[in-house]
């Protein structure tokens, strides 16, 4: 690289290396407003959990119910991982509900009708998902049809194919092994009296990992002269998160132990977060969503990236289809109806921008959990289905309105 020598540069003095302990501010208001867009969503999630805990008289926080939420919404969260990537790139996918139905149906036909082992069904469903993703990717990336149209067509197309595959009837039941995918637990691996030690150990490791990565991030931020919370605040934040997570773990441990689907979900969230934040592919997705022309002129193969984004969405839809069919112990023609809307709502509530270029996997997970906690809480309270729908709609609208308001304020500064 050839560049001019720094002459009279303010940066020349090089800021002194600030200590991890002494750096930072205790101005909580300043920190909150600065990070409102990124951390507001997690605050909202915690507030909602507390709110429903009070409203249901503690029932929503009971061991059985917590386990239930995880099992019941796992497939929406899996879909939301793929959806937020699609949305960051500036697209949308309306077909995932139908893809969930079709992949579940394919798996059911293979396992139930043809009597194949459970894993053959799983592989068949995953392959179907990959093919569907490649189909969408081809039309969006190489033909240049807007994803809204392509996946709207896909929504009708794959719902129709589900009816064909199932011959218009439901198929059930799956063998017991297949049911383990969504309803199985790891329990008693390390023993325990009335509670599962294995679950607690896994979560303790997770908390330690979280604390370590937060510490590293803090060090990096300080070296870039970014504003960070003061050290006591930093510790306080980690302690709060640790308490919340370990309480959650305790509730699981005293119920039925570690859900297999939760392990799967945790691996997916971790892997996709790393891909989106650290890999070249993830960078290119953000670049395309932020300014597609600039990305193309920087050498990003826009078509290839768009293609694989949809292939990935197909794969995750198939995974969600497997989990859903496992949980409902069969395949129905109407399975997965409106799942796409829940997944899209999760991504937008989680801070993804309609215009693309912004969004995070973790945010989408928080957005999905907000929807889950709300639905579950309102069900426990016996609130009418119609009212639930109205409230969920308003929450989605307000979340995006809040996001746009924040952006406008940031822009005017």
């Amino acid at each position: 690289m050839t560049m001019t020598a720094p002459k009279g540069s303010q940066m020349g003095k090089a800021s002194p290396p600030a200590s991890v302990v002494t750096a930072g501010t205790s101005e909580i208001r300043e920190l909150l407003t600065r990070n409102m867009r990124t951390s507001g969503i997690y605050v909202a999630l915690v507030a909602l959990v507390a709110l429903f805990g009070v409203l249901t008289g503690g029932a929503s926080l009971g061991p059985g119910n917590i386990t239930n939420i995880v099992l019941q919404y796992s497939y929406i969260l899996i879909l939301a991982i793929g959806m937020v990537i699609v949305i960051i790139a500036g697209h949308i996918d309306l077909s995932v509900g139908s893809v969930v139905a079709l992949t579940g149906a394919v798996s059911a036909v293979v396992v139930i009708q043809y009597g194949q082992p459970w894993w053959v069904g799983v592989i068949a469903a995953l392959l179907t998902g990959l093919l569907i993703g490649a189909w969408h990717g081809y039309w969006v990336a190489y033909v240049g049809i807007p994803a809204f149209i392509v996946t709207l067509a896909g929504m009708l197309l794959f719902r129709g194919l589900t009816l064909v595959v199932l011959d218009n009837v439901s198929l059930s039941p799956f063998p017991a092994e297949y049911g383990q995918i969504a309803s199985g637990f790891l329990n008693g691996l390390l023993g325990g009296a009335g509670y599962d030690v294995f679950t607690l150990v896994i979560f303790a490791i997770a908390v330690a990992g979280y604390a370590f990565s937060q510490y590293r991030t803090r060090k990096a931020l300080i070296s870039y002269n970014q504003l960070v919370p003061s050290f006591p605040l930093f510790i306080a934040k980690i302690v709060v998160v640790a308490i919340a997570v370990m309480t959650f773990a305790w509730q699981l441990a005293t119920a039925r132990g570690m859900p297999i689907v939760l392990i799967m979900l945790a691996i997916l969230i971790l892997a996709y977060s790393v891909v989106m934040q650290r890999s070249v592919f993830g960078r290119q997705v953000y670049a395309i969503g932020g300014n597609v022309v600039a990305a193309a002129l920087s050498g990003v193969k826009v078509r290839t990236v768009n293609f694989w984004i949809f292939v990935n969405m197909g794969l995750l839809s198939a995974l969600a289809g497997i989990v859903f069919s496992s949980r409902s112990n069969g395949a129905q023609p109407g399975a997965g109806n409106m799942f796409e809307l829940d997944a899209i709502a999760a991504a937008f509530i989680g801070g993804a921008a309609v215009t693309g270029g912004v969004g995070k996997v973790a945010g989408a997970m928080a957005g999905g959990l907000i929807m889950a906690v709300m639905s579950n809480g309102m069900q426990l309270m016996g609130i009418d289905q119609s009212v639930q729908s109205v409230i969920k709609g308003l929450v989605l609208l307000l979340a995006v309105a809040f996001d746009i308001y924040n952006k406008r304020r940031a822009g005017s500064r």
Partner: protein
Amino acid sequence: MVEHILEMQSITKSFPGVKALSGVSLAVERAEVHAICGENGAGKSTLMKVLSGVYPAGSYGGEILFKGQTCSFSGIRDSEHAGIVIIHQELALVPHLSIAENIFLGNERRGKSGLIDWHRTNAEAGVLLDSVGLREEPTTPVGQLGVGKQQLVEIAKALSKEVQLLILDEPTAALNDNDSAHLLGLVRDLRTRGITSIIISHKLNEIEAIADHTTVIRDGKTVETLDMADPDVNVDRIIRGMVGRDLEAFYPSRDSKPGEVVLRVEDWTVKHPSQDRQVVDQATFEVRAGEVIGIAGLMGAGRTELMMSIFGRSYGRYISGRVFMHGKETRTRTVAEAIEARIAYATEDRKAFGLNLIDDIARNISGAALGKLSSWGFVNHHEEAAAAEFAMKSMNIKAPNVKSIVGKLSGGNQQKVVLSKWLLTDPEVLILDEPTRGIDVGAKFEIYTLINSFVDAGKAVVVISSDLLELLGTCDRIYALSTGRITGELPAADASEERLMTLMTKDKELIA
């Protein structure tokens, strides 16, 4: 005593930080064709926006008299009501609507019921089309017409508003020779019908052929108004008025010692992506190690199109020609291949084409060189941050840190981010398209210094600029481009604004 239909007296107009007009005066006689000439950025378009009310009364200084009365337009509707219609370079027609619908858009012909009277609409449109010499059905969608015919529809639309003063901004820039001739004939014809025209054009021989008077504007001021009937007034005389100023001591000097040829492009021809015309025609040029070459050309000459099509075929279609790096023919069919061949291209419009404004400095700078900064498909954050920190220091980018959002930086700092991004790809040829547009004097100097240190290291630079002084001040050699053809090549020592302008305004016929 001649009657002036329009008098603009000492018009001034400022934008934050820039004085676009500082005292322009203009007097236009009734029923004449009055041309306005000036370099890019001289203030022609701003002046016309003041006149047509795009910049409302009160936002500028000076006085406008139309038919002897002071005007204070608060918008385009007011000026159109008074009989002043402006036709912009980018036509404002709706492609899916018919010719008749476009002509009466916003001015619909209604029946008694308040609904549109289609018979009257189409009949009146037919009469207007006859008067501009356009033989098309009024019901034809505008999108099916070529640019030349669309231009005529715009004029018919102006006539439907009973226009008295017609302003044409670069009307022939996108037209072929036949369409240009027809349009200019029509303008002449309108004059005999008592309609006054103001025409802004870079094509000086057209102006020589059609205008009665020519007003020359430079740096936001009126230089002179020439009577075209005067036998001494010709294209050269106009050019002298357009460029006559001193070269400021503004460009850092450099010892240039060009070495071997790094990039050579032969017979490069590019067609417009949607229209049937050649935007670049058989262009051949080369740039040597340690050398800065300039590409001079007026707007629409094909400068950006030439470079963008070389850089990974990012513009146009049916591209033909050959690219050589160090004498070896090189593939640059995709941007990735061009970057691999060590060519870098910093775009003209950095906000639209160069940067991801919602992302931070580090990630913008690493954007074109992620391959180098990653292993196994994962970005090495430490190397990325180090590269960005180094760029911030060496380029003197003023921002809190490498995590600052690029959209919040000033134009000069954004441009430095763009340059850092391309330097990180370690190019041998750096193509800079309008590298100093819209940035302040200090940042300009820094960018010129950077160009110098880059070529001192034996690399090559191509500068595209509308500012001829910038080309004269920074380049070793300058190629002039006119309507897609390279019309000349001058060593900077022999070049002057006059000589360049002569080459830049040469038409195809004159070359042949």
